[in-house]
Structure formats: structure tokens, C-alpha cells
């Protein structure tokens, strides 16, 4: 899935480079606690179960459900002036973590909390791809 987006393109940094590298390869990474095994959102720096900072990257299935979503009508950034109303979703991955993303290929009016989704990866540049989600049939 390739797009010429008007949206801001993230710049990978030290903490996120691995995540973006994997996304470029079509893989969704989360963090996993090396100490207790808890799955964590990719942004986490420590385990909220055991406080360990020994986290490793782990590959998520990319499948989950829409935990919640909104439809944004405000233009708070110039890149989005032609995109409103657009959706922002909180996806609960089957592995546990909830992550912010967008749902693609679905009309905003058809989005439902609880819908099954799977990750798709949108190429934004030579270096950067980002995970988004499309709805799939319930398994």
C-alpha cells in the first residue's frame, strides 16, 4: 500500500527506529518484558507489571479489535485541512497492547467498536512506513 500523503511523515529516532524498520517490512512490533513476559505498547520504556526496563521488541500478529475510535472534525494541523472528517482509532491488539492508528478502507460511519481489524502498512517514504488497520471478518 503506497501513498503520496500530505500528512506529516514521522522521522525515526533512537527509540522508534526498529519499529519503523519493521513496519517497512510489513511487521508490527510491540515491546515485551524480558523479565515477566508482559506485552507492552511499543512506546513503553518500562514494564508496568514488574517495572523492569529490560524490554525487547516482539512481533505482533497485527490483528486486534477497535477498542474505541473518533471522527475528527477540527483542523489542528494544516496537513489535514482537506482530510476532515477523518478517523483516529484506538486498536486493542490480540497480544494486549492498545495503540493509536487510523482505520483505512472503511467509511467513518461504518466503523464499530469491537470490529476485527488487521494491520496494513502504508509506505510514506524510502525509509518510513506506518501501520494502519483495515476491518476484517470476525474469526
Amino acid at each position: 500500500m503506497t501513498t503520496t500523503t500530505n500528512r506529516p511523515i514521522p522521522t525515526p529516532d533512537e527509540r522508534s527506529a526498529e519499529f519503523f524498520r519493521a513496519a517497512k517490512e510489513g511487521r508490527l512490533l510491540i515491546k515485551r518484558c524480558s523479565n515477566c513476559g508482559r506485552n507492552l505498547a511499543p512506546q513503553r520504556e518500562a514494564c508496568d507489571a514488574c517495572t523492569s526496563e529490560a524490554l525487547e521488541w516482539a512481533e505482533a500478529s497485527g490483528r486486534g479489535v477497535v477498542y474505541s475510535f473518533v471522527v475528527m472534525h477540527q483542523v489542528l494541523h494544516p496537513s489535514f485541512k482537506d482530510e476532515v472528517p477523518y478517523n483516529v482509532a484506538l486498536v486493542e491488539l490480540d497480544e494486549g497492547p492498545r495503540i493509536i492508528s487510523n482505520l483505512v478502507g472503511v467509511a467513518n460511519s461504518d466503523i464499530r467498536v469491537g470490529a476485527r481489524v488487521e494491520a496494513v502498512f502504508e509506505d510514506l517514504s524510502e525509509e518510513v512506513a506506518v501501520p494502519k488497520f483495515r476491518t476484517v471478518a470476525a474469526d
Partner: protein
Amino acid sequence: MAQAKAAIVGLGITEMGKVFGRSGTSLAIEAINLALEDAGLKKDDLDGLLINAGISNSIGLGLQNAGGFKGLRLLNHMNAAGSTACQMVQYASMAVQNGMANYVACVFADTPLAAPGASSGAAYGGAARAAAASGNGRPAGPPGWAGLNAHYGYFGVNIGYAMAARRHMAEFGTTSEQFGAIAVAERDWAVMNDRAQMRTPITIEDHQASRFIVEPLHLLDCCLVSNGAVAVIVTSVERAADAKASPAYVLAMAQGHPGDSRSAGDPHEVSTGAVIARETLYGQLGITAKDIDICELYDCYTYTVLVTLEDYGFCAKGEGGAFVEDGKLGPGGSLPTNTGGGELSAFYMWGMTPMSEGVIQARGGGGQRQVAKNDLVLVTGNGGILDYHASIILSPRPA
């Protein structure tokens, strides 16, 4: 019932809303002076100052020298977002209880409305920051995770609360009309508050017809954006006995900061820090929700009122929608809530909005909107996206 911990003996509220050409510092000084006058105190009596800046960050420790507050025994610049007002009163109460200070001014000031015609959405949306970080809108985002959120279009605080409201609706069947009932009740109170910015009565239909900000939140689900300042003076129970005006006694105080694991099973979106705070708060007095006479709840959005009512046990979790829809929060209702019009209809001074109205009601100074039974007034503050929470109970009596 426990003895009061402290008392609020002065309240100062500046002009509110589209107040232009004045600095936050100037507004803060005026609010403190008004509060001192209300309390019958002179500037030299003041020996404590706690400061809370809003989104515009227009006041800080420099307020001490700008306002000529000399020889203080207590000074801090605090920020726990919307829970700060209750927290300032809590720390001031502990200070006066422990002899660290006699009279502590707690002040909030904010000037997010920069000039006539400026977008208030932009002031609270972080648009300027986001645009700057992305190179004036060109598609080169901020680094790392912030850039990911920017790409997804996740800006400002409205989205987080809308996400939470939607989750509550999906999980419990809560409706937008039920949120609307909160907006209507608060507007009915605002009609009787000459400080309120919005005083034209509204209906559920008006609420439903108001434009979407972030679905499921309509314009009338969202708080105002206001310039202004509010200050209260906290003193000991002993000193309050000599106060010029009737005190509002601080009977109980608590905080609750739940954290968000952003993971399956975490109720963060449908729950507040009140779940933690309520045991402490009610426990200090041996009461339950049934004993509360008036609620002054942090209402940056209609949804926060609903979820806070649930978490303080006024109804069961998930039943907030049905609980509020019968009009019991409004004038003449069985649970008067946000009796000045709140942040939705009166003015948005973070936690100082519910705080100021709680003080007014506990002192019996509400005029036309004064609630007859005001023995226990619950005041709450909320910050982050339901991340931080603090509360106090005010009363006309010290025990």
C-alpha cells in the same frame, strides 16, 4: 464526623472570557487582591502563595515579585493539570495545619485567547506546536512516536476525551443525548450566574444540532476557552473563626492517579482517579455518596461529569447515562451539580471553576442559584485524559 482540616476564607474571580490586553500576571494579582479583600485581609497577612498556570503558561514564580508579595513562608508553582486547584488547596491546608503558613493564596490564571478572532481550538489544540515541528505543514513530521501520532492526526486533548466517551457509549449504551442532558442542566444553572459566559438556555435538540468537534463530542459537550484568574485564601480552622466572611471549611481531601497501561483489561477510558480517591475522601468523614448535597465536578467535557458521578458512587458503573438524563443535576433537581454553569457554560479556569463555585455554595453566597442544603459540597478536579484526579469536600461547618 472529623474536624475540618482548614478553611477557605476568601475568593477572588476576575472578569472572565474574552478579556484581552491583560497579562496572566495582572489577572492573577487582581484575583489575589479580590480574595484578600473578600477575606478582610491585607497583603502583609499573606505568607503563602501557590501558583498554577494554565495552557498559556502565563504566570510563574515571578508572580511573587510582580505582585509585591514579600516575606512568604510558602511558595510553589504547581501543575498537575486540571487536578491542580484541589491539590493547591490540599497542600495549603496541610501547610496551615502544620504551622508552615497562616494565609495561603492559591491562584490560577490563564490567557489562552490571544486576540479577537483567534481560534480557541488552536489555543488548546497544539496546532502551532505541531505545525512548527513539521516544518510549517510540510510532510516532515516530528521525530519518533510524536511523529507517528502527528501522522495519524492525533492532536489536542479533544480526541482523547472523545475516545473515552465513545468507549463508554459502546460498553454501556450511553447516548449522546445523555451527555446532552448534562450540558442542558449546566446551562440552566448558568442562566442564574452573571459571571457565566453562556447564559442562553439550551435544549437537548440544541445539543444534538451543535456541530461535531470530534465525534462523538458535539460543540456543546466541550468546555469554553476563557481568559481570567481565580484565587482562594486558605487558612487554619482557628484563624477562620475570626474571618470577615463566612468560611468554607475543608472537611476531607484526596487524590487518585490511576495510570494507563494502554493494554487489554485496563478500564482507563471509562474510569477516573475518583475510584482511588473516593475511599480516602469518604473515609475521612465516614460518609457515602448519598450524604453529598452538591457536586462541583470537573467538566472539561460533559462526559467527565458522567464518569465522575459513577466513580464517586452516585450510581453504578455504566449507569451514568440513565442517572443524569432525568434532569436531577439541574436547578430543582435532587443532585445539584455544577451550580454556576461549570466549565461548559460559565468559564474555564481549570480546577478553579468547580473550586470557586464550591466555595460560593458552601458559604451560602449563590444568590438566586444557592442550593438550600449545602452541608457537604464535593469539589473535583481532573487532568490529563482522565489521568490525574483530586477532590475535596467543603462545608459551612467545621465539623
